[in-house]
């Protein structure tokens, strides 16, 4: 039987704030265990939360980027359950009045675009981290109190590929908005999956299986491939899927049962009495709206139209906000949009992936790239020289003109200087001259190459070819 797959994702995003959500402890990764802690994030007796407004702003900005309705009034609630990594044994979260409601995210699948509806976006606190030793366990509370934004999608994703594309697109938006570091290795983006199958002709969603605590996009894809296969196996054999929560084991590539519906938690949500409801004025929301950047999809379209770039170039250049900013700055200075794009798309991206670094670590400036493009257009340097200069710019920075002068890479275009090399090439290779004159026109390319060699690559190849042709065609052998 054929089934329709419905996947929804609850994505948890650690926000890029300087301090934690309820206290002044730094929000950072990689410190020694239990050093970024205080009575508040440890849930000591009498400690009270005090809301970090920047976390609210980042949540609202995310909602604005995803087209959510920003709720004028929202509040926090306590979600109760006992777990050693949870300092208060309740998590301060948002139950029925989140900051953002609705919204959507456009994803790219199979060359097409699909709109995925967002249910809600709310803000909560991250918990600590359990560490298991051989004989005992410990908890590191450095992460406890990190602002955590949860983005809930509608169950509209229909395949592991779509789930992957959704997460990729979401991450891009989060990086564009400077919402999160977006570092998966550091657990900045984690998600819970729900997945259900139903016969093609059914309108009713099947029983929901939840898979908890996924921390790689690839893991999400793999676990879904496995889970869908598993569920099809059960359904095809006449079995029934029971609502349950499962965990994914990345090593074995299997999901296993964590708890059944009967053992589902009763979280006993109730309004958090330690925090007042948050009321956002339209002025505040407008101020946040004015600060949101252009979204990747919009920018891609604009690049194609405004700079006349192919869709492919526009897509790659806008895949990363810093890269797009770099392109746009260089293109604006240069005016030669396609040439700037070519340099970035080929040599620069190749260099970045070779070095394994991000655009933020690169030495070349947009001004330098624009200048380099200009030198090529003006015929001041030829392409091989330009490539040499570009490499130096990537590795050490600097000004193209200065590097050109320093390394003597200026192109030789004046006919007197070119003619000296041309004559030497003709006299050294009489057989090639003869070949050309006997109709083997390919010999010309060889002779151009000789001129370039003799000029140490500095000769303008076009000028060299013209000089050669003039002499060969006029019958003047030059000797």
């Amino acid at each position, binding site marked *: 039987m054929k089934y329709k797959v419905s996947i929804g994702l609850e994505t948890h995003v650690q926000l890029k704030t300087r301090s934690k959500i309820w206290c002044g402890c730094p929000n950072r990764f990689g410190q020694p265990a239990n050093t970024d802690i205080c009575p508040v994030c440890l849930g000591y007796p009498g400690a009270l939360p005090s809301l970090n407004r920047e976390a609210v702003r980042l949540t609202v900005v995310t909602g604005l980027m995803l087209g959510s309705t920003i709720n004028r009034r929202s509040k926090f609630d306590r979600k109760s359950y006992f777990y050693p990594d949870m*300092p208060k044994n309740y998590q301060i979260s948002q139950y029925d009045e989140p900051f953002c409601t609705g919204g959507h995210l456009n994803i790219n699948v199979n060359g097409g675009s699909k709109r995925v509806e967002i249910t809600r976006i709310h803000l909560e606190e991250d918990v600590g981290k359990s560490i298991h030793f051989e004989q005992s366990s410990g908890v590191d509370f450095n992460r406890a109190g990190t602002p955590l934004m949860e983005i809930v999608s509608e169950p509209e994703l229909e395949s592991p590929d779509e789930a992957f594309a959704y997460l990729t697109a979401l991450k891009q938006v989060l990086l564009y908005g400077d919402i999160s570091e977006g570092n998966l290795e550091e657990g900045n983006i984690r998600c819970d999956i729900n997945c259900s199958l139903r016969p093609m002709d059914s309108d009713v969603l099947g029983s929901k299986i939840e898979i908890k605590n996924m921390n790689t996009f690839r893991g999400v894809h793999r676990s879904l491939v496995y889970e869908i296969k598993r569920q099809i196996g059960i359904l095809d054999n006449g079995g029934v899927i029971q609502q349950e929560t499962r965990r994914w084991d990345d090593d074995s590539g299997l999901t296993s049962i964590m708890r059944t519906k009967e053992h589902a938690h009763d979280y006993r949500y*109730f309004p958090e009495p330690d925090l007042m409801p948050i009321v956002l004025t339209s002025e505040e929301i407008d101020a946040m709206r004015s600060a949101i950047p252009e979204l990747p999809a919009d920018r891609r379209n604009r690049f194609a139209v405004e700079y006349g770039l192919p869709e492919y170039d526009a897509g790659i250049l806008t895949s990363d906000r810093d890269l797009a900013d770099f392109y746009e700055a260089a293109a604006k200075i240069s005016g030669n949009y396609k040439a700037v794009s070519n340099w970035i798309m080929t040599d620069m991206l190749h260099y970045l992936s070779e070095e394994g670094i991000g655009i933020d670590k690169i030495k070349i400036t947009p001004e330098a790239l624009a200048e380099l493009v200009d030198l090529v257009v003006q015929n001041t340097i030829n392409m091989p020289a330009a490539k040499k200069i570009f490499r130096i710019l990537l590795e050490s920075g600097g000004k193209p003109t200065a590097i050109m002068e320093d390394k003597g890479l200026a192109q030789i275009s004046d006919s007197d200087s070119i003619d000296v090399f041309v004559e030497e090439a003709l006299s050294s290779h009489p057989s090639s001259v003869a070949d050309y004159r006997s109709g083997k026109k390919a010999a010309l390319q060889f002779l151009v190459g000789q001129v370039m060699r003799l000029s140490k690559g500095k000769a303008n190849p076009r000028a060299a070819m013209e000089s050669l042709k003039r002499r060969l065609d006029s019958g003047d052998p030059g000797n």
Partner: protein
Amino acid sequence: MRSLNALPVHELNQLLQNGECSSVDIVSDVISAIERVDDRIGAYLDYDGEHALKEARASDERRSNGCQLPLLGIPVGLKDVLNVRGMACGCASRILEGYTSPYDAYVVTRLREAGAVILGRLNMDEFAMGSTNENSAYKPTRNPWNQDYVPGGSSGGSAAAVSACEAVAALGSDTGGSIRQPASFCGCVGLKPTYGRVSRRGLTAFASSLDQVGPVVRDVRDAALLLEVIAGHDRFDSTSLNIPLSSYRDTLTGDISGMKLGIPKEYFIDGMDPDVKKTVQDAIDKCAELGAELVDVELPHTEYAVAVYYIIATAEASANLARFDGVRYGARVDGRDPLDMYGKTRAGYLGDEVKRRIILGTYVLSSGYYDEYYIRAQKARTLIRNDFENAFGTCDALIAPVTPTTSFRFGEKGDDPLQMYLGDIFTVPVNLAGICGISVPCGMSGSGLPIGLQIIGPAFKEERILRAAHAYEQATDWHNQKPEIARTAGMS
């Protein structure tokens, strides 16, 4: 001359200023009082006399250098629910055994800034749950007026210490009457400020939407003085409001002529102790004599207050006390797995009343019961709040008893918690409405136990109830009465 430990703080300030006594003298008198009587009263869980004397000496030194602060060199006792850096804070519970606080509560910071000497931790009902101090995990506190009787609770240690002259001033906390009721039972003055007037930071939470810290003291002037010190906006407590403070002592004019005092008929119920009824009625007449205008008011939803209170307070408590799990601090009983550890730790180290309330609170928040209990209670809470708002439309403050009875014997209420909870009927509505109330001594029962008068004011109108309470107090002598044991404590 009376010993220093029997004087109100404002008189001690006068003596200190005139050089007639030193802070060391005061602290020494208080310590010797504790040594003489506390084995019979049980007000203190712990105190560090040596440290207090050291601080007293430093205070005297500062004073000699010209330093002037509202509580410079005055020893203050703290209910065991307040965090003091480097000190235990046990909430009279065994589950916090071994816990040392790493930080000062906001009110403790304010006390220190005012020059106060932190003296010790005062006994209470475990996690402030109770009305008798019988629920302390360590020892009961006894009523200084008659040691067969309870001191009230949950700030019973604070009230008993002040009453027995083992402290000159103390802080307590009031969630449903826990300052006013023991103050009434022990013959002290107890003030519950408006919700949001005093920061709750560092006050171990019982019910977050109801808790307030307040003074337990000898007279109304001291209540005004201590409120001036501890009140104010704390930006790290988002329920603390940024509303300007009054100079409360300046409002104590003794004049209440023309003040409209409302008498809520629901606060004079059948089955009330006749001594209480008559004494409070006499106090009301006294206020009329002083020029106050009496008006009858209605608070029609009063009958729901106790039920509403025990739903909301326990719901919040069930979450607030979830943190006592043995993982990060306090007592721990190891188990097979975390769940087993929580169960064993909490079963072994929390008292019966605390468990009862956690279970009740967990129940009212459970799926399927939430709407029926918690949501309905919140709606009723709004009605109770509206009752007060309506009443304050026709009067400036309300005048009423604090409790339906005077103190009672240990064990007298048996093990019927409902019977005990009903004693809160006149105090819990004030917490539910988030307004302020004060208890002042207004007489003695036939069996020689103090009776308190409650004056209730609108939100952030502490100056009004302080002025009324002060005028009444100054026209009577009840606040000067001392229990017999105070003589042993060094009052002669």
